[in-house]
């Protein structure tokens, strides 16, 4: 499971380094400089503008906005948690908490899956109408799924997976965080983990979150 966590974590890595923050609303100027474009920005007359309500980091080399809300749109190489929705002739339709359907070919899957099987998978390709094709499937037995806001997922993973480590050690849960906002949990103190994740979600835009969550988990232990 550790490899998979690594695959998602670097996205967060770049963010935490920049201290200076700025709240932007749709149409606000992000920068007038020439920068690489990240997510939720667009160019007009050579200037970079935000297209969402969110936070941007003016010192960053990449112009991007971290939105405070939004739906999950699959992107290539995303690690997601999904539920098998339906079996087709050559594969499965998977519910990945997106507004678009996604498909998993039976050729790319060694196990025989059933309706309602919980799987983790990677997004192989996304077509022009945002339908995803999945691969690299793992089946999960037991456990439960927590739903969080997809835009808060990078904070739940933390810089290089630091937050995940805190959550795992603090609660003894076995967990996998999907980029689509679904978290698979098994064993340990599930209720405590759910509370901790709720805390992360509500304070995702604040600093020193790992320290806060660590304290929260320890505080509960004392009780």
């Amino acid at each position, binding site marked *: 499971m550790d490899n998979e966590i690594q695959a998602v974590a670097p996205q967060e890595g770049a963010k935490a380094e920049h201290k200076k923050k700025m709240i932007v609303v749709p149409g606000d100027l992000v920068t007038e400089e020439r920068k690489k474009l990240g997510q939720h920005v667009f160019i*007009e007359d050579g200037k970079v503008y935000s297209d969402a*309500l969110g936070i941007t980091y003016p010192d960053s080399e990449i112009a991007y906005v971290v939105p405070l809300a939004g739906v999950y749109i699959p992107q290539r190489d995303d690690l997601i948690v999904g539920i098998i929705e339906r079996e087709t002739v050559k594969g499965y339709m998977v519910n990945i908490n997106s507004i678009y359907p996604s498909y998993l070919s039976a050729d790319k899957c060694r196990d025989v899956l059933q309706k309602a099987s919980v799987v983790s998978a990677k997004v192989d390709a996304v077509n022009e109408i945002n339908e995803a094709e999945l691969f690299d499937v793992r089946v999960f037995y037991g456990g439960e799924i927590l739903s969080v806001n997809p835009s808060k997922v990078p904070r739940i993973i933390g810089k290089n997976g630091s937050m995940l480590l805190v959550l795992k050690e603090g609660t003894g849960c076995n967990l996998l965080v999907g980029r689509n906002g679904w978290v698979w949990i098994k064993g340990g103190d599930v209720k405590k983990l759910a509370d901790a994740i709720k805390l992360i979600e509500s304070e995702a835009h604040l600093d020193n979150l790992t320290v806060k969550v660590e304290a929260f988990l320890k505080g509960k232990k004392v009780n």
Partner: protein
Amino acid sequence: MAKKQEKIEYVKNGKRLDGRKVDELRPVKMEVGVLSNADGSAYLEWGQNKVLVGVHGPKEALPKHKQNPYKGLVRYTYRMATFSVPDRKNPRPGRRESEISKVSGEALEKAIFLEKFPNTAIDIYVEIFDSNAGTRVAALTAASLALADAGIPMRDLVCAVGVGKAGGEIILDLNKDEEDAPDAVDIPIAIMPRTEEIVLLQMDGLLTKPEWNKAVKLGIEGCKRIYEMQKQALRKKYAEAEQEM
């Protein structure tokens, strides 16, 4: 014989009937994220107008033949509560409501990056609880806040205001008394403030060319004031984050 009507002075010594200046807005209160079951929501009080907006989506557009593989749909529903006007309003959606829904939806379409959401629909439900002239602009202002709250990518916020003429004077943000003036002209105007692109413009009544130029200028200026309030309302939701900066 018609009863001789007393002539009302709509602007007297630079002050209007309710004590405002000619270019003054009614007090506006905005709040974002008020409905827990909607993806985005906003509540707005504009003078006596009270508007609640809920945004659902983007979600799969149904019935399926309405889907467009090139862009998403905006379905804007403007509705006035039965108790929103002095007499009871028939709850059946009428001509006026359908029309306002259509033009307001089209105004918001200009601002949203719909091409990012093929085959989907964005539902915007607007409920007017209390009305006193200028509900469509209040609704549009609130709807754009709710869209931003839902995290839907937009080129810009949409801000709207009413301008017009009453008693021969060009005034900003007409209330019901002014709208009922014998020579009243009412112009709801909505813009995307960054580019000043006009996304909604309607007019009833007649204006001369200089009056028109003055009215549009005043309207755009008013919209920009509304825009600042919108930004504040959105930021207020994350006030804590701002303090950290």
